[in-house]
């Protein structure tokens, strides 16, 4: 099971991607709790692409791919921005960062998915891939 979306670089597009992922999770029998955390990670990845990758350039597009294979959910989010260095992201739990209003998105992605990888695209931009092992609802219940 898979889906591919090309989204306008607007925050309203996050809702479109969410609905597509929910449909896929329902079809794939992913449990409700796991679906919730995967959606949370998806929101953060697309929001980062729109806000930090494209910096308000709504003419750019965000490409999103979902795949459920075996007992794993795979998500890829691709932007056309300038990229960034994921190794210099500060820990939002550190005392000096705790009351900062930003800087938690990537932390949530890493927390709620098993694997999160950032790499530069061949023509620039950032490719984010995330995977999470899931327990199908049919097995869980």
């Amino acid at each position: 099971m898979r889906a591919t979306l090309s989204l306008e670089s607007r925050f309203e597009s996050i809702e479109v991607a969410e609905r597509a992922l929910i449909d896929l999770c329902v079809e794939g029998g992913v449990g409700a709790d796991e679906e919730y955390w995967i959606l949370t990670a998806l929101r953060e990845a697309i929001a980062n692409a729109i806000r930090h990758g494209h910096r308000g350039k709504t003419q750019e597009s965000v490409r999103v791919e979902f795949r459920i294979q075996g007992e794993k959910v795979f998500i890829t989010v691709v932007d056309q921005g300038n990229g960034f260095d994921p190794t210099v992201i500060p820990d939002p739990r550190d005392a000096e960062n705790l009351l900062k209003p930003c800087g938690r998105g990537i932390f949530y992605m890493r927390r709620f998915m098993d694997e999160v990888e950032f790499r530069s695209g061949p023509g620039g931009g950032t490719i984010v891939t995330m995977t999470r092992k899931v327990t199908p609802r049919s097995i869980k219940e």
Partner: protein
Amino acid sequence: MKQQIRDIGDVRIISLSGKITIGSGDVMMRELINEGLDAGYTKILLELGGVSAIDSSGIGEMVASYTSAKNRGAQLKLVNLSRKINDILQVTQLITVFDVYSDQDEAIKAFA
């Protein structure tokens, strides 16, 4: 996001429901809190029982509102968090920052 505003005594209660996510409720939440602060309320209770999802942007606005309230000599407390919203605050250790209550009466009494 939907909101309901009511006052009990000198406590401003802001009840939110739906999503508090980027472009969909995050800024509105901050504006509602700021309106309360601008109106002179120093005890603001954020009731989150109906919130289905929050993202880092919503959490960021909540933290900014907490700091803003504190800087203005006011208090911001949270009540009725779902288990998932609680988990989201827990993993970033913000649960240690906010005063969180499970019962509205208890939260109101806790305002000094």
